[in-house]
């Protein structure tokens, strides 16, 4: 739930409850006041009747004025009549309809005879008044609620818009890109604070990232020189004299380890370079030709493991760096060979817009970490960076690389 929505809801519910309670109290109070006034009128009338009886020794004529009626009745039952106010209907002669009324039953003694006196008054005016007050209250309530809604919708939306713009920029924040977070200017302190913090964080994160990256870059660079020296010294060592086969095997192991270290370093440097978009030789590449050339280049390696190759290559051009295209294909081909079993096969299908390389393999389906750095199967002798590099290359040009395991085949698909 959005903050504004939540606030809105609380606001509306509270306003509604308070207004309802106020309305009820208002209604009761007014009702009470008006009834009190009616009763007072009834009492005045009662006093007038009593005074009339005392002065003239007879009952006043039963009156039926507008909104007021007086009736007399002899009390024959001998019971004492209790003085009592009550609500009843009032028949309006002129309008010929029943109206709500208020009556007072009392008694007067005249010449030893007890009379029951009923004085009734119409309540219609006070009811009308209450109704009017009720309508006004209702109208005010509705008006208030509607204006609250509108304020929440439009004003709050405007007030919060800097927040959403900052949020949008934080979502779009890319650590590798240099764009600053440029927040909307606002007079609201909280949002200004948020913007400042977001910017400070972005700057700090970028700085840390840059430092880390340049650290990796420099470390890899610095390692290359000693590696070059070890490599050349080994080459020199081999020329110095005769070695036994046992010594030769040790030297070979050193070569292999150095080779791996060099490969790893080169891969890390390459990754950094792709991330920094430092590879600029973008050109139109005839994929049909390039894939065909790669197949020839890998020919001996296919043959070595007795792999059969099935290729279907249709003409297709793609715009990318030739250098990276080479590396991308090398990695995918090498994987298809490396993780195959002898006598297996490889399918290479190039269509307009997609390249599929699928191969039989030793292992089960690869886990979904396969495009992560240094993720590799236990039996793999590679650096664990090949697919990470492939993915990075694809990301650089907006290609999509995906993996599937179907019918015991590993299948890599690139959509250009």
């Amino acid at each position, binding site marked *: 739930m959005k903050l504004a929505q939540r606030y809105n809801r609380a606001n509306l519910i509270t306003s509604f409850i308070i207004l309802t309670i106020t309305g009820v109290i208002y209604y009761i109070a007014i009702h009470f006041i008006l009834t009190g006034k009616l009763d007072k009128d009834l009492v005045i009338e009662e006093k007038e009747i009593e005074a009339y009886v005392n002065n003239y020794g007879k009952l006043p004529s039963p009156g039926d004025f507008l909104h007021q009626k007086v009736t007399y009745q002899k009390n024959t039952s001998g019971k004492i009549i209790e003085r009592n106010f009550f609500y009843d209907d009032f028949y309006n002669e002129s309008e010929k309809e029943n109206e709500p009324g208020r009556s007072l039953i009392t008694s007067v003694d005249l010449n030893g005879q007890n009379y029951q006196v009923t004085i009734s008054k119409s309540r219609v005016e006070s009811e009308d008044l209450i109704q009017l007050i009720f309508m006004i209250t209702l109208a005010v309530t509705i008006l208030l609620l509607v204006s609250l809604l509108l304020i929440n919708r439009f004003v709050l939306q405007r007030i919060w818009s800097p927040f959403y713009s900052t949020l949008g920029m934080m979502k779009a924040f890319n650590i590798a890109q240099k764009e600053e977070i440029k927040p909307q200017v606002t007079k609201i302190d909280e949002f200004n604070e948020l913007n400042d913090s977001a910017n400070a964080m972005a700057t700090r994160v970028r700085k840390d990232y840059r430092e880390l990256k340049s650290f990796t870059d420099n470390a890899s660079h610095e390692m290359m020189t000693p590696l070059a020296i070890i490599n*050349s010294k080994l080459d020199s060592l*081999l020329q110095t004299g*005769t070695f*036994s086969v046992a*010594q*030769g095997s040790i030297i070979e192991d050193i070569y292999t380890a150095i080779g791996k270290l060099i490969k790893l370093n080169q891969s890390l440097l390459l990754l950094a370079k792709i991330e920094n978009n430092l590879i600029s030789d973008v050109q139109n590449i005839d994929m049909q030709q390039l894939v065909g050339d790669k197949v020839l280049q890998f020919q001996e390696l296919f043959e070595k493991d007795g792999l059969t190759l099935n290729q279907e290559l249709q003409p297709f051009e793609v715009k990318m760096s030739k250098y990276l295209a080479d590396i991308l294909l090398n990695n995918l081909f090498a994987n298809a060979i490396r993780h195959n079993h002898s006598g297996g096969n490889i399918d290479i299908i190039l269509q307009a817009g997609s390249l599929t390389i699928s191969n039989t393999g030793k292992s089960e389906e690869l886990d979904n970490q396969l495009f992560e750095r240094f993720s590799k199967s236990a039996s793999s002798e590679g650096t664990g960076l090949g697919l990470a590099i492939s993915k990075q290359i694809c990301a650089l040009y907006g290609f999509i690389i995906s993996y599937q395991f179907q019918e015991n085949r590993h299948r890599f698909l690139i959509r250009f």
Partner: protein
Amino acid sequence: MKILVIEDEESLRESIVSYLKGEGNICEVASTYWNAMEKINLYSYDCILLDLTLPGGDGLKILSEVKKLNKQEGVLIISARHSLDDKLSGLEMGADDYLVKPFHLSELKARIMAVIRRKNFSGSNLMSFNEINIDLLAMEVRIKEKLITLTKKEYDLLIYFISNQGKVITKNAIAEHLWGDEIDVSDDFDFIYTHIKNLRKKLVEAGAKDYIRSMYGVGYKLENV
């Protein structure tokens, strides 16, 4: 052949020099930018090995100096900068080849030989080792005038061996030379054995001596027997 090695890393420079020396090759060294500039202006070489990161200045400036002096030296850039831009600008400025560190000395030697051949023999381009004669333009191999047919890989391998005659070449270096260093597919290079076996067989059958020997299981060597 006279070769100038411009490289600031002493250990590496020593290895290169000791590998290249002999067989009538003379190596001179320069370890700084100004040292290199001085030698280039004073002497002539067949080939210059140029490191790009030098104390005192950028190696690419040395390259432009060589070109400005209108010298005929072949220039081979050796650099740790595995940067495509450097490679392109180096080649655009007239370098003959570009080799990224770390490299195998045998690869370096083969590249130097190729650069020198291209510089020295415009026209017919012949290479020979005893009775083995290679016409590099026609890509033909003859044993005492008898033409033999080699595959592309066997042909490359033979030239690689002759360029590095008398030196032990590792299987690793051979694989990188033949398949390129970006191809990292095999962890044992035994499949190279087949190619070398076939090459030896073809040479011996055509009447050449068997010059190629396996060395301690690490690599191979072509030498006079």
